[in-house]
């Protein structure tokens, strides 16, 4: 079997707040294989961003704290690395792009300086070569007139353009893993499609892996090979994208899929999941979803103990007492090397 590029094992993160501890990530495990796109989906505050930030050790400490678990990049535990060793991994092996392109570029430096700084740090090149690499990186993300753009400041660019620059910066050192934290949330729809297609194209060219964090199921359906659904700081369902969209097992996933509006369908109101996202300081007992669950709201088992993530079918993990065969299935860490055949849309939107 293929070696995973990144393997997260039983990650637990806590934040020590004034009124006790909150646990934004609990027992999260998943694997990312080379060339694969893994999507983490969930509502705001479910812990998906914290999971991603903890890979790069970007969680503010204090109040944040990793309680336990391992983050293995090609077998090396990132949580055990020293600061200087970690800095070599950041940017070189793992790069990250952020949600808000308007604020993720430094306003006082030119685009070229910002890209070249990271290149100079991670590769043995002269400043002149770094500039050439930066120019090539801009060209790769489809920015016309890259040579002139290098000397521009972020405020001279539009949001979509800046997100391209962010991607160029992230990819200038050829990372093995790209963490994209809601990369298209702040962009309008046509730009969204362009950026996602650009990411797919670059992924094909460089065979990098992508960890895609989003709450947009459309983005997931279009891009992801494997999907993990997070709810209340845990993964509640984990499967390949096709399997998840065709046969959702967890009631929360079902609810999410039902609440996506469909073109052509007549409906007065969009379907919603009743209730609100639980406050991490006061999680409900037992299954964290049971107060909002439509399946068996009266079942005392749901309120009493929290279901574990079990492999209820080969390659399909779910954490719900009311999934057929849940009680008898083995408890394993989810890992899927699946790659989906995505339609190659070369050159349609990305020039």
């Amino acid at each position, binding site marked *: 079997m293929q070696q995973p590029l990144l393997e997260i094992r039983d990650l637990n993160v806590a934040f020590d707040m004034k009124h006790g501890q909150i646990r934004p990530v609990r027992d999260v495990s998943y694997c990312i294989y080379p060339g694969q796109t893994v999507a983490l989906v969930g509502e705001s505050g479910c812990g998906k961003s914290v999971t991603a930030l903890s890979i*790069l050790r970007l969680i503010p400490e204090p109040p944040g704290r990793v309680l336990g678990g391992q983050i293995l990049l090609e077998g090396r535990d990132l949580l055990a690395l020293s600061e200087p060793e970690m800095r070599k991994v950041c*940017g070189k092996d793992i790069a990250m792009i952020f949600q808000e392109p308007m604020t993720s570029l430094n306003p006082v430096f030119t685009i070229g300086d910002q890209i070249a700084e990271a290149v100079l*740090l991670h590769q043995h090149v002269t400043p002149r070569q770094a500039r050439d690499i930066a120019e090539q990186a801009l060209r790769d993300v489809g920015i016309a007139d890259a040579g002139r753009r290098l000397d521009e400041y972020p405020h*001279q660019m539009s949001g979509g353009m800046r997100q391209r620059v962010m991607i160029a*910066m992230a990819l200038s050192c050829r990372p093995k893993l790209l963490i994209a934290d809601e990369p298209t949330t702040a962009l309008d729809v046509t730009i969204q499609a362009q950026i996602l297609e650009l990411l797919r194209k670059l992924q094909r060219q460089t065979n990098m892996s992508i960890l895609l964090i989003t709450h947009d199921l459309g983005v997931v359906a279009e891009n992801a090979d494997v999907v993990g659904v997070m709810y209340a700081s845990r993964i509640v369902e984990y499967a390949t994208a096709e399997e998840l969209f065709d046969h959702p097992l967890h009631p929360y996933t079902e609810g999410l899929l039902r609440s996506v509006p469909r073109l052509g369908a007549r409906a007065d109101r969009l379907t919603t999941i009743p209730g609100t996202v639980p406050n991490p300081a006061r999680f409900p007992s037992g299954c964290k979803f049971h107060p909002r669950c439509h399946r068996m709201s009266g079942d005392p088992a749901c309120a009493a103990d929290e279901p574990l993530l079990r492999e209820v079918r080969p390659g399909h993990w779910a954490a719900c007492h009311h999934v057929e065969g849940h009680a008898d299935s083995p408890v394993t860490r989810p890992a899927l090397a699946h790659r989906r055949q995505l339609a190659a849309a070369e050159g349609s939107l990305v020039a």
Partner: protein
Amino acid sequence: MSIAELPSAPLNLAGPTGDQPPRTFAQQAFIDTFSNWRARLGAVWIVLLAFAAVFAPFLANSHPYLLKVDGRWSSPLLEHLAPVDVILLVGALTAMALLAMRSAGVRACAMALVWMVALTTPLALWKVAWRNRDVLSITIGTPLAWALLLVVCLVILGALVWTWRGLGRQGMVRWPLLAAGALLAAVLIARPIDPPRTVVYEHYREMERAGRVQFILRAPIPYSASDRMRDSSQHRLLPPSWWGGDARRVSTWHWMGTDVNSSDVLSRIIHASRIALAIGFISTGIAVVIGVVIGGIMGFFVGRVDIIGMRLVEIFEAIPTLFLLIAFVAFFGRNLYLMMAIIGLVTWTGDARFIRAEFLKLRNQDFVQAAIAAGLPLRSVLFRHMLPNGITPVLVAASFGVASAILYEATLSFLGLGLVDEPSWGQMLEQARTLGRFTWWMAIFPGMAIFLTVFAYNLVGESFRDAIDPRIRKL
């Protein structure tokens, strides 16, 4: 507000200018600051003051520019220039030349300036140091003196190499700079700066009275700050010559009268501008460096570091600067550099608070997270990515800090605890106070100099604050 803005409308530099590339934030802030007539007025006064400080020996000096005595030409003014005068002069001339060229970038200009000053300093000082070598080796102890000398040499050499490499391929600046440096070195080695230790100003007047002077070209104000005209007691405490009264009795002309030692007041005011500028800039510079480093660390690391840092800030804020200065002067004597260091070491707390607040805000910004995620070292994250985005409030505070440092020095001198020999504005005010009779020219002119300088810094600082304040800023 709107009426005050009207006169500047035709000169509005901030207006839209068509196809020109958009400006950076720093450029825009600079233009916004000086599009205001009050700030321009303040800047004009500060520039005048800087000009007076640099060219003080040429503006007010008892030594004539040119002298022909008994058929021999000489230039006593140049012969009596001190090393400091020469270093300041070379620095100012280089800055002017760079401003006139306008083609090089800010970075190249700064590098060129550092280069010229680093080259001039040892060249200007070597003869004086050589002459005093016995004193040096006895007072410091030979090995220590040599070690110190070595360190100084290495620093200067490092500065030269660093600036030369930093200039990169700026040929426009690089080769003229090398030529100017070589010329300077040739001149300063052939004619070292070696002013005579005993100076008799009366000498020129005696020669003139004796009729031996065939040609003399004097400075605009022909009196040095320390020219006390002791032999002619009728020069003591003269009012300005245009005022009348006692002044009519003497043949010499004094624009602002003379002081209790018969020195020319205008000359002393001009020479005192050096101290005013130096104490303002150096003490504020020390405060800004300390404040930025401590405030930056507090704001970035938060938690325990922040708590300890803020207590440190509070401890320093509890120290009354003036009383500390008085105590130090009482124990360690009247030393200008000591004053600068103390003012700097005590007043950094405001800057640290500003930087801390800015960094607390910046550290959660995406671009700072992105910089950390790119694996940049802490030094680069803190001082390359965060500092330029958070430095502006400190610059505003610094312009007010310069003004308050000048006031501290003036206050100390006014209390009679300032410098003894060098002229300073506060010390002149103190003379006016202790004389027993009212000599208005001794109070008004130095008082106006202090007032105008502090006022000018405040005008510029206020305008700068308005320019960078997003709430007041109009787009």
